[in-house]
């Protein structure tokens, strides 16, 4: 038995072999970094080029005369279907959809997690299991019934509108999407909060109960102040998922002025009339990517934690 006392996870061998090893490792890591960065890089440089430069230049070259023109055009002038007023309206559609959907689903998830860990009843695992499975279903299996229901609600909304002058949001595509995202996001938000509150000391809750604190008082005074990290994780996870959703958006708001950003972008890019303005397309894509990219840059740690929590249950 040889007595090798090199530290763990360092390669055994001579110094020369070791240096070579390190070079290979760093080289591979850099190569893969390029692979992951490449699409974003191409998107970014192309969005600052003129069409002339795109047609005659190399896609990986930096713009010779950077211009913001494509960005302005994407924001305010480019055509989505037949309307040529840029993507700004659709960007706001997405914001109007995302903010309420994220807030409602997160708050409900927090309450559900609180009940499922601290106010348990017989069958709580079954309830949780049923909600959890809902995270994994292919949404194709609920797409059509939901479309039918939303259609009927829309017709009911028109009736209400005629009768009372107010439709209560029924039939409004943005409201519909908020509803859909809350319903199908509940499984995830409940999962996050349940797993987080699981580790929260139950003794504290019991002590508060002895002191006469009510269900909601305990939630507000004890649970909420201690839930900041999981709130951040859940909000980021929901924000990213809902902002990036394409299936629900195209099924329930696929046409007209109420399209969310993803659907509008897909329309911009796949419009086949006239000259394809790649720089404008790339700028539009960058604008659509900015919110989630920003969140990722600012709070990447929490984003990863959310993904992990969604992946490793129990």
């Amino acid at each position, binding site marked *: 038995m040889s007595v*090798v006392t*090199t530290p*763990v*996870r360092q390669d*055994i061998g001579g110094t020369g072999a070791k240096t070579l090893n390190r070079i290979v*490792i*760093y080289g591979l*890591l850099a190569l893969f*970094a390029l*692979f*992951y960065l490449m*699409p*974003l890089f191409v*998107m970014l440089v192309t969005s600052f080029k003129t069409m002339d430069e795109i047609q005659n230049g190399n*896609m990986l070259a930096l713009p010779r005369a950077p211009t913001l023109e494509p960005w302005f055009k994407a924001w305010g002038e480019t055509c989505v279907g037949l309307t040529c007023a840029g993507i700004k309206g659709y960007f706001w559609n997405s914001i109007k959809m995302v903010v309420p959907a994220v807030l409602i689903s997160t708050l409900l998830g927090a309450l*559900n997690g609180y009940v499922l860990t601290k*106010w*348990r*009843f*017989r069958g709580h*695992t079954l*309830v*949780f*299991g049923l*909600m959890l*499975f809902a995270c*994994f*279903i*292919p*949404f*194709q*299996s*609920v797409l*059509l*019934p939901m479309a039918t229901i939303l259609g009927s609600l829309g017709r009911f909304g028109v009736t209400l509108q005629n009768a009372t002058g107010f439709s209560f949001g029924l039939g409004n595509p943005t409201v519909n999407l908020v509803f859909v995202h809350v*319903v199908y996001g*509940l*499984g995830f938000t409940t999962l996050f909060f349940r797993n987080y509150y*699981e580790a929260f000391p139950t003794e504290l*809750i019991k002590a508060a109960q*002895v002191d006469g604190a009510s*269900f909601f008082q305990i939630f507000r005074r004890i649970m909420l102040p201690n839930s900041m990290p999981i709130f951040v994780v859940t909000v980021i996870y929901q924000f990213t998922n809902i902002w*990036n959703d*394409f*299936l629900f958006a195209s*099924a329930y708001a696929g046409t007209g002025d109420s399209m969310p950003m993803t659907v509008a*972008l*897909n329309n911009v*890019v*796949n419009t086949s009339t006239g000259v394809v303005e790649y720089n404008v397309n790339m700028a539009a894509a960058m604008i*659509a990517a900015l919110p*989630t*990219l920003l969140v*990722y840059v600012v709070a*990447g740690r929490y984003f990863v934690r959310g*993904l*992990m929590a969604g*992946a*490793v*249950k129990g």
Partner: protein
Amino acid sequence: MSTVAETSMTLTPEHETRPSASVRSRLQDALPKIVLAPSFAATIVFVYGFILWTIYLSFTNSKTFPSYAITGPRAYQRLWRWTFESDPPSSWYTSITNMGIFGFLYIFICLALGLFLAILLDQKIRGEGMLRPIYLYPMALSFIVTGVAWKWFLDPGLGLEQTLHQWGWTSFHFDWIKNKDFVIYTVVIAGVWQASGFIMAMFLAGLRGIDGEIMKAAQIDGATTFQLYRRIVIPLLRPVFLSAFIVLAHLAIKSYDLVVALTSGGPGGSAWLPSNFMYEYTFKRNEMAVGSASAVIMLMTITAIIVPYLYSELREKPR
């Protein structure tokens, strides 16, 4: 409603029961269940109820509008008859073959690449904090967004091929995205690009959780680095493999926007996955029953993978 009966089960005496059974305290007792009830009811109705509704529709003759007269498993018969008896192959045949190719390659390459990158990053790398976010950011972007860039990059007239021609490698030829036999492999490339960084992060977390003493002991016994990973580290990562597999399998079956953004379905629908098939048949070709049948088949596939996993996860730790 049946859901109320399911949620209104008795509370365990985990909390203080007060002797006075006034309305107020009774309400306090029921409050947790009242709070949970709307979410649970929504899940029962909008998930499970809707699934039953879809299953029902798949046994009807629904075309453009739903029809509620049961006509038997005709939609399924049509799907499978197309699959095995039609020539040229039907779009359902294309979709499930693509699912097989895409599912296998996507899961396999993501696992292999994720593990490989995690092991490399675990070699006390300077700049790890910078590399990790670079590998992982695609997961934060919508594929509708990055599809724009990938489509361009893979386009023979604009992207990689054109660039290499400009650099002097004029014989280079890469037109998979326009080729109906190869277009599904471009979907694999883009899918791997998006998810492998996340799988890397899962493996890296697993590697960091391994007791350093075990590794040290193995090295003292003279194990080479390769043996160390092959015999000790990788077997210890088994739970991570399982979690990663579950994540990838359900992402693969749900993949929809990937195909739309990258290929718009490919030449003649040659890049379709079952999710695209369902959407096209239900909303564009007015074959609602056939679309529903395909959705049911997708659901059954995921159920077969997920339910045993969830069952063991929730059972192992009875709290």
